[in-house]
């Protein structure tokens, strides 16, 4: 003992407790983890939704948009037509109401078009070349991702313009052509080589591409409409839905009779019916199941009803009859039976139960099938090209996606397939492939500390009044105002994503959490010498971004 220590009476309190190591008491330690949110996992392009919503909330609008386009080159498109599985998965729906993620995306994306924001610079050029067959959403998404990584990318498209179904399959009142053009123009600036009006169909052409390019991505879609044999002989009055949409979107104004029947229950049926209504016709959708089983999106059905479109359910078309000058579609009544492979009750005809509907034009919207590319050893499965989870086909260096490989028929699914294919092509050609941005398990609603989130109703979505819709192709769904977008952003739980709220710091009874300077990597450091591993920070993290990890000594 030194002399000075001896001079202090032993009864004095002269030492600080922070010299003591209470960390030795611990059996578990909190770990900051950017965990995947339900919206991120549900998103077909795996968008970093909680991340860009935080940026939007902070007013970092350009940064938020940049975060979106890391995964999706067409947010103005998806901001309008995405089937938004993210919103269906949103944890907020268990609290009050789910977030309008799609409309927030649209707000940022439309702002980007207005401001002329551009995609990031492409990486330094690589020597490998990739050919993309099909200039629809899947092909364009793959082209975009590959171009950003520095590959030479060439797209081969049959039609005069790029866009695929985005251009020729979605009516203008859902996706204005101007919006699509603007987003495609921005993509064009990246330097992807386009070969429009160049059909790749023959085996020799594919062989040639295989030889010339290091990898192929085939996304030629499902172009062959399904038909009913009993209507083959009525070319005048029986039209094909996809063909009708193609003609309307190409600027034609097809002549339809005053009474139109649309056969089918999917998105094409709804799209053609609503288009027909805009061409001043009386429109009824004839579907063999019931409304609940329609594959179409709910909002579509709702909007169609508002526009005065009628529905005849549990009816299957049998034949066309002509009586004097009146043409009639004879239908058989159906009833629901056992569940089929799709999990929906199978419609079964009721014996001898027939009825007729007057009609001038019948539009077939029964879906479409793929044309299998003539490539040796390219395997198919259930009338689709067989691919694995990375969009890899049975042929080396040939990948496929979009409607060619999936019955989903969603724009975002196609964009996602294109992105996944691009990551896989990158891996095949010696790159790093897919990057993981989140770790750990999906954040559940039970892991959100709802005390921190007062209940707030969802923003009311605005639509063009039904009376103003049916005489033109004006956009029906309207976007959010800045105020609405910020309000929605403020409702976000940011599941699993640390937004530096400092709650963990404030709730530590042991002062064992240090706030780091911004931009220094991690937002916080756990002072391991003091942390007793109580888990209060985990519990008080509003969004499940901290987990407790057991320690063994």
């Amino acid at each position, binding site marked *: 003992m030194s002399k000075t220590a001896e001079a202090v009476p032993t009864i004095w309190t002269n030492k*600080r*407790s922070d010299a003591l190591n209470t960390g030795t008491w611990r059996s578990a330690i909190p770990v900051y983890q950017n965990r995947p949110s339900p919206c991120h996992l549900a998103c077909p392009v795996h968008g970093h939704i909680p991340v860009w919503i935080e940026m939007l909330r902070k007013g970092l609008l350009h940064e938020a948009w940049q975060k979106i386009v890391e995964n999706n080159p067409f947010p103005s498109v998806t901001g309008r037509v995405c089937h938004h599985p993210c919103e269906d998965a949103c944890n907020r729906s268990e609290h009050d109401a789910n977030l309008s993620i799609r409309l927030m995306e649209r707000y940022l994306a439309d702002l980007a078009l207005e401001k002329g924001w551009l995609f990031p610079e492409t990486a330094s050029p690589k020597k490998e070349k990739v050919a993309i067959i099909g200039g629809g959403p899947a092909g364009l998404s793959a082209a975009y991702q590959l171009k950003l990584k520095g590959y030479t990318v060439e797209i081969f498209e049959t039609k005069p313009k790029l866009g695929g179904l985005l251009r020729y399959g979605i009516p203008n009142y859902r996706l204005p052509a101007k919006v699509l053009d603007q987003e495609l123009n921005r993509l064009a600036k990246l330097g992807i080589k386009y070969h429009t009006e160049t059909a790749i169909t023959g085996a020799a052409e594919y062989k040639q591409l295989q030889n010339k390019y290091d990898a192929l991505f085939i996304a030629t879609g499902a172009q062959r409409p399904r038909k009913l044999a009993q209507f083959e002989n009525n070319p005048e009055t029986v039209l094909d839905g996809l063909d009708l949409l193609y003609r309307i979107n190409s600027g034609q104004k097809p002549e339809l009779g005053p009474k139109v029947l649309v056969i089918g229950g999917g998105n094409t049926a709804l799209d053609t019916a609503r288009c027909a209504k805009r061409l001043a016709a009386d429109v009824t959708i004839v579907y063999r199941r019931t409304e609940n089983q329609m594959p179409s999106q709910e909002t579509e059905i709702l909007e169609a009803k508002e526009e005065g479109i009628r529905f005849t359910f549990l009816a299957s078309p049998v034949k066309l009859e002509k009586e004097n000058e009146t043409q009639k579609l004879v239908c058989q009544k159906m009833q629901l039976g056992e569940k089929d492979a799709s999990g929906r009750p199978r419609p079964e005809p009721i014996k001898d139960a027939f009825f007729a509907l007057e009609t001038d034009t019948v539009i077939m919207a029964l879906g479409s099938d793929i044309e299998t590319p003539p490539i040796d050893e390219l395997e198919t499965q259930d009338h689709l090209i067989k691919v694995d989870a990375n969009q890899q086909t049975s042929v080396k260096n040939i990948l496929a996606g979009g409607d060619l490989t999936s019955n989903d028929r969603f724009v975002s699914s196609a964009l996602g397939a294109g992105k996944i294919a691009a990551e896989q092509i990158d891996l095949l050609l010696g790159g790093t492939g897919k990057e993981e941005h989140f770790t750990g398990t999906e954040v559940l609603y039970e892991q959100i500390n709802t005390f*921190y989130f007062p209940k707030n109703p969802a923003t009311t979505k605005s639509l063009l009044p039904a009376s103003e819709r049916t005489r033109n192709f004006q956009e029906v769904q309207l976007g959010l105002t800045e105020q609405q977008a910020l309000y929605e952003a403020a409702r976000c739980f940011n599941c699993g994503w640390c937004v530096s709220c*400092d709650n963990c710091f404030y709730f530590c009874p042991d002062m064992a959490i240090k706030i780091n300077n911004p931009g220094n990597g991690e937002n916080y450091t756990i002072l391991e010498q003091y942390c007793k591993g*109580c*888990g*209060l920070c985990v*519990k008080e993290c509003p969004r499940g971004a901290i987990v*407790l990890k057991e320690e063994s000594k």
Partner: protein
Amino acid sequence: MKHYEIAEEKVFLPGHGACPGCAMALALRYVLNIFGRNSVAVIPPSCMGPMMGAQPYSSMLIPIFHNSFESSASSAAGIKRALRARDRDDVNVLALAGDGGTYDIGLQALSSVAEHNEDIVYICMDNEGYMNTGTQKSSSTPRHAYTTSTPGGKESRKKNLVEIMAAHHVPYVATANIGYLDDFVTKIHKIKDMKGTRMIIVLIPCIDGWGFPGDAAATMSRLAVQTGVFPLYEVEDGTKYTINHGPEGLPVETYISRQRRYRHLTAEQVSEIQKEVDENWAKLEGMANLFSATM
């Protein structure tokens, strides 16, 4: 979203001896760090002892006087008078006691100090029992709760200390807890700027004594408020009532079913507790209506 921004002066140090996840350590952090270095505290026997640390270590960078169990209020008042005599009236004097030292053993001294309106701050860390010595009951232990000295559940009700202090017409008495950190911090700031006998009764859900998971002290604090068991309110000068956070329609069952000390309860006893909580709330609301601070 709720967001905290709390300025702290570093007085309370890590390395202290509180159990992991202890609400009292967190409450003490804000009391000490907001009152700051220009303070003196008295500490009777309580969990505050281990929290300060074993000799010669201290987790509190202010002078501490360890008084006898019954004398926290009078010791604090004496120190305050001595400081004033030496022209150091600027120094805050705090009594940091548990419910045993306040509701039971120190009540006589507290009553006298309150009656004189001595210029001290009294923080009662109310964990509803003698949790430091092995979970014996105090007069703050609620009805039907198990303690080692009430193995079949306590028969009498929890003493209402807020009303006792209000009856002394002290300048300020309030309830608080760490589940509502912003409310708690506001109250500490408020009494720091006041004079006279000021008291905050902080509900401290005790992980070991009450029996609930080690990460749930804040959750339990909130449930106590949301079920109406422990409403957060202030009484100024004995007559001015302000309710800060009251029940949100949750049944008491959601609170008591999460605590081991209540696990022996019959459905009948649960409804008795519910009735008691409803009565207490009706009475408090009535008082707040009659004597609103904003009137």
